């Protein structure tokens, strides 16, 4: 083993605090950090697929120390996070140029750190800490440019209040678990829980789900999401939508599957909640006039689909959920980035001295001719989210439906209901696509010529299409990831000593 996965967390954390010192060069630090993480995690993938890596920190042997558990799931998420982080930070190079620039980079790196930490750690309290890092940087990023941005502040306050309640729940649950079993190591906890026959264990589980659920944006804990996603600048929306909420889902699933062994009652609740989230998200998105808010609600819907897939609690279901996470991350990031660029261009043209992060759908009319590549990116992202082949969204939908049908019975019926959401999604996204390409707008003198902004589009679009045509490249890592989630015994068995 040449490199340590600790670096995945340490480097961005370090860079986060170096960034403010760098002055003008600060903006190159997030891409550098994310690229480092990306390369590192990709290098680690083959090793991890052979056997998970466990890194103990502080010299104590597990379960007494804080340890990192770098399994396929963790490394998959780490790679996804760093990929998203890298592309978004390239985009942000020229997008985030005004006002609170320095703070942005620090917070951004902190967010990446938090996210990476959550997925890599093997210790429940450590998970909480990283989760809090993620959350606090999210609150702050939401309020990016709070001084000029009225809605950003409002969204951040609301997000913060809900998030804090959720965090308190998590901490409470951790305390209870510690009170019961006297350990914080997840493998150890899982071992104890598997043996225990306590009838009160459902209390921490409840608190965990309710707590992580806030970040995961499951219905009805997701009221912050449309606000926060819609008002923050495009890269931030993208990282929220593409990464942050998926981390919430990851946390729920880690707790539910690994710690508590996926009891049926919880899984069915999650399934229903996922379905509700999906439907409510799509239905709300259907009537939005604000393009970013619409996309935000669409994120809720997609999360619902992910939770639904996980709620099936079968291997194929989890694989499908993970695939959907990938597909949603790629597509939604592309969607938010393209929307962001459109908003940016319109804003620069029409009111350059105002700070605008959201815009009416009608304002995008006719942009297809002025910004062909961006519009193409938007269309690809939207098509992928709807689930049209040959884009990646199709593959993930295929896997989810297949998983639900494999489980059969009532699950198949619920899946049928879930598919209605796709129709709604198609309706509102395609209306926007139509507007961009076929409506006449008053946009004049807008050009797209910023390479830093366009390059992420290319990469994301290429990934979406490539992974849509060859979904096989993901199946191996996703299969072993889902295996990791389901194989509780194996997880416990990794515990040294």
């Amino acid at each position, binding site marked *: 083993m040449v490199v340590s996965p600790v670096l995945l967390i340490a480097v961005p954390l370090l860079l986060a605090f170096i960034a403010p010192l760098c002055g003008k060069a600060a903006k190159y630090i997030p891409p550098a950090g994310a690229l480092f993480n990306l390369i590192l995690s990709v290098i680690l993938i083959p090793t991890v697929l052979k056997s998970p890596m466990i890194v103990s920190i502080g010299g104590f042997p597990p379960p007494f120390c804080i340890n990192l558990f770098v399994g396929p799931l963790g490394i998959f998420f780490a790679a996804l996070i760093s990929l998203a982080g890298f592309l978004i930070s390239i985009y942000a190079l020229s997008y985030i140029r005004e006002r609170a620039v320095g703070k942005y980079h620090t917070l951004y790196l902190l967010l990446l750190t938090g996210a990476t930490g959550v997925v890599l750690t093997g210790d429940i309290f450590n998970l909480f800490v990283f989760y809090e890092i993620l959350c606090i940087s999210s609150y702050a990023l939401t309020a990016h440019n709070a001084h000029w941005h009225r809605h950003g502040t409002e969204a951040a306050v*609301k997000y913060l209040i809900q998030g804090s309640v*959720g965090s308190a729940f998590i901490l409470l649950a951790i305390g209870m678990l510690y009170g019961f079993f006297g350990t914080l190591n997840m493998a150890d906890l899982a071992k104890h829980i598997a043996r225990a026959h306590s009838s009160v264990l459902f*209390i921490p589980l409840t608190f965990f789900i309710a707590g992580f659920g806030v970040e995961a944006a499951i219905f009805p804990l997701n009221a912050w999401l449309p606000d926060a996603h819609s008002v923050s600048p495009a890269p931030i929306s993208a990282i929220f939508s593409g990464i942050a909420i998926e981390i919430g889902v990851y946390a729920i699933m880690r707790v539910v599957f690994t710690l508590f062994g996926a009891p049926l*009652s919880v899984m069915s609740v999650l399934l229903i909640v996922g379905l509700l989230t999906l439907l409510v998200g799509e239905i709300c998105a259907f009537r939005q006039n604000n393009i970013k808010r619409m996309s935000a609600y669409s994120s809720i819907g997609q999360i619902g689909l992910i939770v639904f897939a996980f709620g099936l609690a079968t291997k194929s279901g989890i694989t499908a959920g993970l695939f959907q996470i990938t597909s949603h991350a790629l597509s939604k990031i592309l969607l938010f980035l393209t929307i962001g660029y459109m908003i940016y261009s319109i804003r620069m043209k029409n009111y350059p001295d105002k700070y605008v992060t959201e815009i009416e759908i009608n304002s995008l009319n006719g942009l297809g001719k002025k910004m062909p590549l961006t519009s193409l990116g938007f269309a690809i992202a939207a098509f992928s989210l709807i689930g049209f082949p040959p884009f990646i969204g199709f593959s993930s939908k295929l896997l989810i439906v297949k998983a639900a*049908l494999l489980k*059969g019975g009532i699950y198949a019926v619920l899946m049928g209901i879930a*598919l209605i959401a796709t129709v709604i999604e*198609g309706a509102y996204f395609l209306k926007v696509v*139509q507007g961009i390409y076929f409506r006449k707008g008053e946009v004049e003198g807008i050009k797209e010529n910023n390479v830093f902004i366009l390059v992420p589009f290319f990469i994301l679009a290429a990934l979406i299409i490539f992974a849509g045509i060859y*979904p096989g490249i993901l199946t191996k890592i996703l299969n072993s990831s889902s295996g990791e989630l389901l194989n509780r015994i194996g997880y416990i068995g990794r515990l040294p000593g």
Partner: protein
Amino acid sequence: MTLKILLLTAFGGAFVTYFLGKVSSKLRNYFAVFVSLTLFVAVACLYGKSAENFSYFKFFGNTLVLRVNSLSWFFAAAVSAFGALSVIFSLDYMKGKENLDFYYMMMLLVNAAMLGIVFAADLVSFFVFWEIMSWSTFLLISYSGKNALPAGIKYIVMSLIGSMAMFFGILSIYVNFHTLIISEIARGIVSASSGYKIFILVLFGVTFGIKSAVMPLHTWLPDAYTESPTPFSAVLSGMLTRMGVYGFLLFFYVVAGASFFFDIDAGISKFNYILCWLGAITIVIPTFIAMLQNDAKKLLAWHGIGQGGYMILGIAFGTSLGLAGGILHTLNYSICIVLLFMSVGAVEYRCGGVRDLNSLGGLIKKMPVAFAGALLGISGLIGLPLTNSFVSKWLIYKTLILKSHPFLAFAALIGTWGTILSVYKFLHNNFLGELPEKYENIRKSPVSMQIPIIILSSAILLFGILPGIPLKVINTIITSFGFNSLNVNLWGIASETGTLNTINIFTAILIAGSVIWMLFRVGKKSFPVTQDDNYAAGAYVPAGKYNYTADFYAPLFKIVKPYLMDFADKFFGWLCRVFTGFSEGVRKIYAGDVGYYVLYILFFAALLFFVQSGGKSW
């Protein structure tokens, strides 16, 4: 392997066309025509070949396969032919419009996707191509902007509902039979329970019902046909909508198998009779609604629905004759409607985009070729003897009568009379009657429009006089479904109970015509007059000043109009409004008050708590 190359050419050609357009528009046009013609030639070369299961790709560990047999060849040939003709027609029609690179790319893409559909031998590739077709169609429908946009949305929403149903069905099949390859499913499905059969057939029925616009699911079609660019309307009506028919054939007769399909008892009636009746309703109501239309393309669009009913009826009825009639009618109808759309396109092109039947007229003198096309087109649509549709309709009627289903036959026949009325209005108001003064100086349609019109017109006559040409292919299709072979000869059907001999009819009419012509020549030579020289109670009224073709069937409307509402459209509209209101309501959940949000969290936690404490299942 050739199929793979064929599809690669089709898809690649579409994208190359786009980029060529950036270089030179002329080059792009030639290339588009070249690609579409190449595809046609390539498909034509596959005639008579039958090869199963070329694997060409792996998707999630499933091998995706292609195949060619008589069924797919039949549809592929039609698709590529109409595609090529539409592209040729586009050359002049689309001249000077915006976004032409995109337009040609999408035309070729739709074409390619349809080829993919008919060549697909496994359900995933079928679905993938189906969806590519759906969204590229959506983009093309929306191409014209303005009114086209709601039409596009309507299309894609209906289409998505259908695709989702199919998606569900495909994966259900996959999960149950562990294979996606059609021939293997066909073997596996024999053992399925009858409830499952109905479930699957209903799912696919919805999908293909939407695509081929069976009556309660047709509402996307009139708008979509009307608002898309006319060459694409031709493709849309000609082949794309008929992919639904292909789907019916594929799923009912190949996947499910004929015996499977007919053995199902769906409660009151047999499944296929339900479908038959849907087909019958689809014939009658739309053809009568078509009479009410004043937009030429909308009128044709309603016929698109109505004629689809014949195909469904013939196919679902499921006798050799009915099946042959249904499949043959698919081809025949497509020829006619493509031709009619092209005539409308030519008129539209010359008259500055006017399609309003109340303001056109008398164009026969100015655009004889377009008129000839329209005349043959409507004759075909009606099913006059010596045009192609006569044969297919005859087959359908005959099987309905012989199997003692006179009520279905009544629906089919009365639909024909509805067709006569509405298409005659189309012809009359476009080409006959007074020529308005403003169209005094319009010119003939350009050559690129005339070529497809002439080709299709001659096809109508050829297949009408020698129906054996397509019937021979269709015969192999229906025998491959396990039906009795028809006794087909070049000029019709020779079977025991009532034969059809188009040569006789042709000869009879030819002889009668020449006799009458000689009689006509015996009379004194008439002298030509202009359209101004008309009897108008002794007054001189220059033609074109007044238009008596507006509101052509006014007396009839007084009677039928109350009964001819598009109830399905109203229902769906109501559903949309309800859904919109509902979604407005649901949005209110996110009330903006953080106190509520915190309460939501608490409630959620409480609910979970409650549920968990109730079911301590671990």
